[in-house]
C-alpha cells in the first residue's frame, strides 16, 4: 500500500539528514507504528508521506503510484491526518470541523451532513449533542475524538496519525486507544502512527518500525520485536521487563474462556448458594448479576456476616470500576491497581457481564510467555 524507497530528508542549513535512506513497506490494512526517541525522524518521515515536507531524495509509492508526481493537494485529500495538538479550527463548530475535507471536495450538502453524523457516532460523540459546539467547549478527550472523526470522514484508505492520543490523561488515552482499535478492526485502514511511547506502539500496531537518528533500525511485528530485538538500542527501548510488556499485546477476550470461574450469582440467589459459591471462589468474593446478565455488584466474605438479608441483592456492594473485554491485559492491571483489588469484572460493549480477571491470571500469562 505504502512503499518508501531510500527516502531521505535533509533540512536546509543542516548537515546531518533528518531521515536517511529509509526503506519501508506497509501492507494494506496494517497499522504501522513509527517509534523512537524525539528527533529520530519519525514525524519527518510521516510528513513526507503527505508531502508536508518534500523529500530531498528517494521515492514514495502509494498503491504503486509515485506520490511525488501527484498533486500534493489531491494526495492529501485522500490521506486522513491527525496531529498531536489536534489543530481543531477554533472558529468552526464541531460539525464544520469534521466536514472540512468533504467541503474541500465539494460533496453535496446532504451527503456531508449524513457522513459527519455517521463518523461522529463512530468515534463516540453524539452528533445531536456536539455538532453545534465550538472546540473550546470540549474536553481534551472529546477533542481527540473530533480530530479522529475529521480525518476519517471522507473514508480515506490511508491515515497518518502523529501522537493522536498524546495530550490526554493515561486513563482517557487507554479508552481512546481501545475504541480506535475497535473502529480499525471494522474499517481496516492502512495507518501510519507516530509515537514515542513504546507501550502504545506495542498495543496499537501490526508492525513496529523503530527509528534512531533518521535511520530505520528494525521493522517487525510487535511480538517479534519483543522476542528478538535487532540490537541493544531496540532492547533498551522495549525495556527489561519485556514479558510484562506482553500484557499490552493480549486482549482480555482472548484469555477470558481459559480463566472461566463459573457462573455469576443471580441477584435472587439464596444465602446458602452464596455461601457455597464464596467457599469455591479464589477471590473471596462473588459477582452478582441481574436477569439480563448486567452487573449488579459484588459480595465479599465479610459482607455476608456484616449485613442482614435474604437474597444476594441484599448483600451486594457496588463495584468501583469494570473493564471492557476488548481492553488489553495491561489495562486490566491498571484498573486493578487503581481500585486496589486483586480482580476486575469484565463487561462487553453492552455492559453485560463476561467474566472476571485476577492478578493470578495475569501472572500466568506472563509466565507462559517467558
Amino acid at each position, binding site marked *: 500500500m505504502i512503499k518508501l524507497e531510500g527516502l531521505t530528508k535533509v533540512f536546509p542549513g543542516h548537515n546531518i539528514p533528518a531521515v536517511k535512506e529509509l526503506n519501508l513497506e506497509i501492507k494494506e490494512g496494517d497499522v504501522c507504528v513509527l517509534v523512537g526517541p524525539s528527533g529520530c525522524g519519525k514525524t519527518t518521515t510521516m510528513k513526507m508521506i*503527505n508531502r508536508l515536507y518534500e523529500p530531498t531524495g528517494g521515492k514514495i509509492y502509494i498503491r504503486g503510484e509515485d506520490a511525488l508526481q501527484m498533486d*500534493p493537494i489531491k494526495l492529501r*485529500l485522500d490521506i486522513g491526518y491527525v*496531529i498531536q495538538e489536534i*489543530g481543531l479550527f477554533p472558529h468552526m463548530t464541531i460539525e464544520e470541523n469534521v466536514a*472540512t475535507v468533504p467541503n474541500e471536495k465539494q460533496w453535496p450538502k446532504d451527503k456531508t451532513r449524513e457522513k459527519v453524523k455517521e463518523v461522529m457516532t463512530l468515534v463516540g460523540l453524539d452528533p445531536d449533542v456536539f455538532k453545534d459546539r*465550538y472546540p473550546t467547549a470540549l474536553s481534551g478527550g472529546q477533542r481527540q475524538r473530533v480530530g479522529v472523526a475529521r480525518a476519517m470522514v471522507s473514508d480515506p484508505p490511508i491515515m497518518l496519525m502523529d501522537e493522536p492520543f498524546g495530550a490526554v490523561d493515561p486513563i482517557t488515552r487507554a479508552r481512546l486507544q481501545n475504541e480506535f482499535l475497535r473502529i480499525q478492526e471494522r474499517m481496516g485502514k492502512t495507518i501510519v502512527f507516530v509515537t514515542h511511547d513504546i507501550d502504545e506502539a506495542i498495543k496499537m500496531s501490526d508492525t513496529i518500525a523503530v527509528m534512531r537518528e533518521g535511520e530505520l533500525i528494525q521493522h517487525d511485528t510487535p511480538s517479534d520485536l519483543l522476542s528478538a530485538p535487532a540490537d541493544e538500542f531496540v532492547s533498551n527501548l522495549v525495556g527489561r521487563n519485556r514479558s510484562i510488556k506482553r500484557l499490552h499485546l493480549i486482549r482480555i477476550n482472548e484469555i477470558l474462556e481459559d480463566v472461566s470461574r463459573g457462573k455469576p450469582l443471580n441477584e435472587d440467589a439464596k444465602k446458602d448458594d452464596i455461601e457455597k459459591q464464596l467457599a469455591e471462589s479464589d477471590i473471596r468474593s462473588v459477582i452478582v448479576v441481574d436477569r439480563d446478565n448486567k452487573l449488579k455488584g459484588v459480595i465479599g466474605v465479610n459482607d455476608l456476616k456484616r449485613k442482614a438479608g435474604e437474597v444476594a441483592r441484599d448483600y451486594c456492594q457496588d463495584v468501583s470500576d469494570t473493564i471492557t473485554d476488548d481492553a488489553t491485559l495491561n489495562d486490566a492491571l491498571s484498573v486493578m491497581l487503581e481500585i486496589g483489588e486483586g480482580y476486575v469484572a469484565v463487561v462487553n460493549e453492552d455492559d453485560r457481564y463476561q467474566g472476571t480477571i485476577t492478578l493470578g491470571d495475569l501472572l500466568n500469562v506472563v509466565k507462559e510467555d517467558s
Partner: protein
Amino acid sequence: MLRNIWVWVGIPLIMIGIAAAIVIYSVNNPTDSIVARMLTYERVFRVIREHMGLLLVSMTGATIVGVAGGIMLSRPSLYRIGRVMETIVNIGQTVPSLAVLALFYTILGLGFRVAVFALFLYSILPILRNTFAGIDGVEHNIIEAARGMGMHPLRILTRIELPIAFPIIVAGLRTAIVINVGAATLATFIGGGGLGDLIVTGLSVHRDMIIINGAVIAAVTAILLDYLIGKVEERVVRWA
C-alpha cells in the same frame, strides 16, 4: 430582537438626537449677530459632509491597503519584512497626529486631498499591524492540520487564517477609526475642512456657542463609531 433594535438603532438615534437638538437650538437662538452669521444649517451640513468625506475616503483606503498589506506581509516569503515593518509601524504610531498632518502640509501644501492622504497613511498603521499580528498569531498546528488535510493555501487564508484573525483585525479597525476621527478634526489647520472648522472659527471669534456645536458633533461622531464597532467586536468572537 427588541434588544437588537435598541442596541443597533435606539442608542445611536438617541446620540444623534442629542447632537441635533443642540444644533437646532443654537441655530434658532443665536446669542448675537456673529453667531447668527457663522452658525447656519448650511455651514453645519457642509462641515459634517466634509468630515464624513475625510473619514470615509481615508478609512476605506486604509482598510483596503492595511488588510491587503497585512496579509501579504504574513506570507512566508515576506514574513521577515513583516517583522521589520511591525517595529516601524510601532514607531510611526508614536508620532502625534498633528505632527503627521503638519509634515504632510510642508510637503504637499494645503487642501482636502492632503488631509485625506495624511489620515489615510496614519490609519493604515494599526490596521496593517493588527492584520499581520492576527494572522501571525494563528497557531501553527491549526495551519498544519489544514495543510495536511489537503486545503489549498488560498482556502487556508480565507477559511482559517482570516476568520481566526478577524477579531484582532476588527480591534485594529477600531483603533484606526478612533485615531482617524480625532485627527480629522485637525484637518482644518491644513485646509482640509471638517468639524474642526467650527471649533477653530468659534475660538477665533470667541463665541462658545459655535465651539460647543463643533465639539458636540465631533464627539458624538467619535463615540457613536466607537460604540458601533465595539458592538461588532462583541458579536464576532462567539467561538472564543
